[in-house]
């Protein structure tokens, strides 16, 4: 069997059903094998799109996303997508072609040091030097990408390795001396955590994306209910706890809700689960939950006490740890009434610091569009976002209630992520409505994937909150840079609806608030890719907002 066939066999052995990619010289042998393999390959229009599609697919399904690019420019085009996956810990295997082994290091045509370039943004990487290693390396790559704290793995394959012969045997065993993710949390620590929880009077759970990778959302809900503890989530954790629940505080941090930020600041116990105390969440570290004891459950030991020193660290898989913790808590008799005054306080904050915006009669408020998306889809859609104000409005004004239904580039903040990620998500979960809440700036960073969506008839909806600005940057300039709007007004905007039509998608321009609902309905009904160009109030800002480096209670615009 040839190397390229061994690659495809290995992919099949991993249960890969969808691959996103674009061919080039040094992956022709692999594509030749794919030509009659029964794995669906989606031809993208730009490799960045392939990486984000694989990522969106992975986030929506929990399976490992796979993308392919050729050497040199193909591989470098993947880089932003790999970095995005790395920062948000999504399982991904990126396969790149490489020049013939004998040419490596000679600046051959389309040679780039892919493993070198991607080294700081991968969980691991391989350069295949012996065709016999293909089955082992693929087995390891998928295992590494998807286990422990997930992340992207790059496999760089010289063209001669795809052509060389090997005696293929499916790889069963994995033997990685230096890689053994911890599953179970330490018993003693879990007991200590349970004791703290049982005693706490003002507890808050701070839940992150780790809950999603470990599939721990049910356990999280049980914990919150059992000990009557309010839950705030990070951007990555949205959906792990239903925002329709009275215990939900929504998102915290720079653009968090006032009540989440007050609750965290005033709590006496902070239970962090699968979250990493990112600076966008904590604001000024010295005042972040300063009075509180802290429990930190995380898969990655390096996250423990990286930014904030905690009292009870527990390394392990969130779901496994929470299960054990729930068992421990059952043994202690917990007086759920003890958090009642605290819950009353939280509810007062919800009243005094609600999320709000001033709705207008005809002009479209971006927040209104998001709320309308929630109403029309009954909150059941998969929401993807671009980056900027659109992302924050999507996070704040949609009541997220289900894990894996909110997909956004949190760590890297990659404009252009949402649309291809939505395509990947729709391919992974074809029965769901998938909507990319977009900005006019971001959408143009991967707009070419409209062609891919139309090509395979992947009916995703792009809802552009079109303000004609790089809005989030404009907001910073307005608030902190004396309204000096340097290069944030997009002077020349295409007619997005006509662009969509030109690609063969449905395009609608919406200028009146009263047409928002119909446009959304029409797009859902169309069952083909659709672009909704909502011309929203241009200078609307995202509030509340905590200026960078300030304490999270120092919010601008947090009160009505």
């Amino acid at each position, binding site marked *: 069997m040839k190397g390229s066939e061994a690659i495809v066999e290995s992919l099949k052995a991993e249960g890969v059903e969808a691959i996103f990619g674009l061919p080039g010289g040094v992956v022709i042998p692999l594509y030749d094998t794919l030509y009659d393999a029964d794995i669906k390959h989606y031809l993208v229009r730009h490799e960045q799109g392939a990486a984000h599609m694989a990522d969106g697919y992975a986030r929506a399904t929990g399976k490992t996303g796979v993308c392919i690019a050729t050497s040199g420019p193909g591989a470098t085009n993947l880089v932003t997508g790999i970095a995005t996956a790395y920062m948000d810990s999504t399982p991904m295997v990126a396969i790149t072609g490489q020049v013939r082994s004998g040419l490596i290091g000679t600046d051959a045509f389309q040679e780039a040091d892919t*493993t070198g370039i991607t*080294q700081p943004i991968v969980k*691991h990487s391989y350069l295949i030097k012996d065709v016999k290693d293909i089955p082992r390396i693929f087995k390891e790559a998928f295992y590494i990408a998807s286990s422990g704290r997930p992340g992207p793995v790059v496999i760089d394959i010289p063209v001669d390795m795809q052509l060389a012969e090997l005696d293929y045997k499916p790889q069963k065993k994995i033997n990685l*001396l*230096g890689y053994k993710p911890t599953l179970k949390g330490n018993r003693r620590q879990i007991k200590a955590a349970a004791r703290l929880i049982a005693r706490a009077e003002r507890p808050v759970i701070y839940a992150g994306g780790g809950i999603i990778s470990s599939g721990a959302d049910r356990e999280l809900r049980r914990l919150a209910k059992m000990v009557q503890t309010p839950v705030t989530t990070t951007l990555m954790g949205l959906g792990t706890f239903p925002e329709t629940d009275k215990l939900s505080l929504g998102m915290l941090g720079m653009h968090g809700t006032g009540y989440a930020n007050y609750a965290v600041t005033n709590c006496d116990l902070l239970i962090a689960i699968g979250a990493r105390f990112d600076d966008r969440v904590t604001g000024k570290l010295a005042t972040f939950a300063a009075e509180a004891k802290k429990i930190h459950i995380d898969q*990655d030991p390096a996250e423990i006490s990286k930014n904030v020193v905690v009292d009870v660290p527990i390394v392990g898989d969130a779901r496994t740890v929470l299960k054990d913790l729930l068992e421990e808590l059952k043994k202690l008799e917990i007086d759920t009434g003890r958090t009642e005054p605290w819950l009353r306080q939280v509810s007062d904050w919800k009243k005094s610091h609600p999320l709000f915006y001033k709705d207008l009669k005809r002009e479209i408020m971006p927040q209104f569009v998001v709320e309308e998306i929630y109403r029309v889809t009954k909150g059941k859609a998969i929401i993807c976002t671009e980056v900027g104000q659109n992302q924050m409005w999507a996070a704040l004004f949609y009541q997220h209630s289900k894990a894996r239904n909110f997909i956004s580039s949190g760590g890297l903040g990659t404009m252009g992520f949402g649309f291809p990620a939505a395509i990947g998500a729709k391919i992974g979960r074809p029965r769901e409505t998938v909507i990319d809440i977009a900005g006019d700036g971001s959408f143009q960073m991967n707009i070419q994937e409209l062609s891919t969506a139309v090509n395979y008839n992947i009916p995703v909806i792009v809802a552009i909150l079109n303000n004609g600005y790089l809005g989030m940057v404009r907001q910073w300039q307005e608030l902190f840079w004396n309204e000096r709007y340097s290069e944030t007004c997009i002077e020349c905007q295409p007619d997005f609806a006509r662009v969509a039509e030109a690609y063969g998608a449905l395009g609608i321009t919406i200028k009146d608030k009263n047409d928002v609902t119909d446009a959304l309905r029409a797009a859902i009904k169309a069952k083909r890719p659709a672009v909704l160009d909502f011309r929203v109030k241009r200078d609307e800002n995202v509030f509340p907002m905590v200026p960078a480096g300030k304490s999270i209670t120092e919010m601008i615009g947090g009160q009505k």
Partner: protein
Amino acid sequence: MKHTLSVLVENKPGALARIAGLFSRRGFNIDSLAVGITDDPDVSRMTITVDGKEHPIEQVTKQLHKLINVIKITDLDPHNTVARELALIKVKSPARSRGEIMQVAEIFRANILDVARNTMILEITGTTEKVDAIEELLTPHGIVEIVRTGRIAIERGEK
């Protein structure tokens, strides 16, 4: 405090680059780094010296651990460790100072590897402090070049 980390690494392509890359990416400074094979040809050992004052050593070791090729890390206890470094020093040695340099070499038990008309090469093995000390004594004579291996270390006792 200086920490000496003894790191067992799978002898795989790119492993050293990954470790060096991790240090630069996370902003950790390496004081010295020595690499060599072990009794197992599939495993290399790196001895890395870092300043624990500048970077919390716990973060350094945890981040190192995340590299798939890293098998084991030991933060060596200085009281229970023998550490050595080797240096080759080429020093200016015109006839009038040659005697003095040879005396220094003798005190430090340095070997003289080469004597040219105007220079000499000394080989010295010892703790980092000892190497520093001989360097200091030779500096007034004019050091042409010094090459140090970086520290290697091993724990005392049965382990």
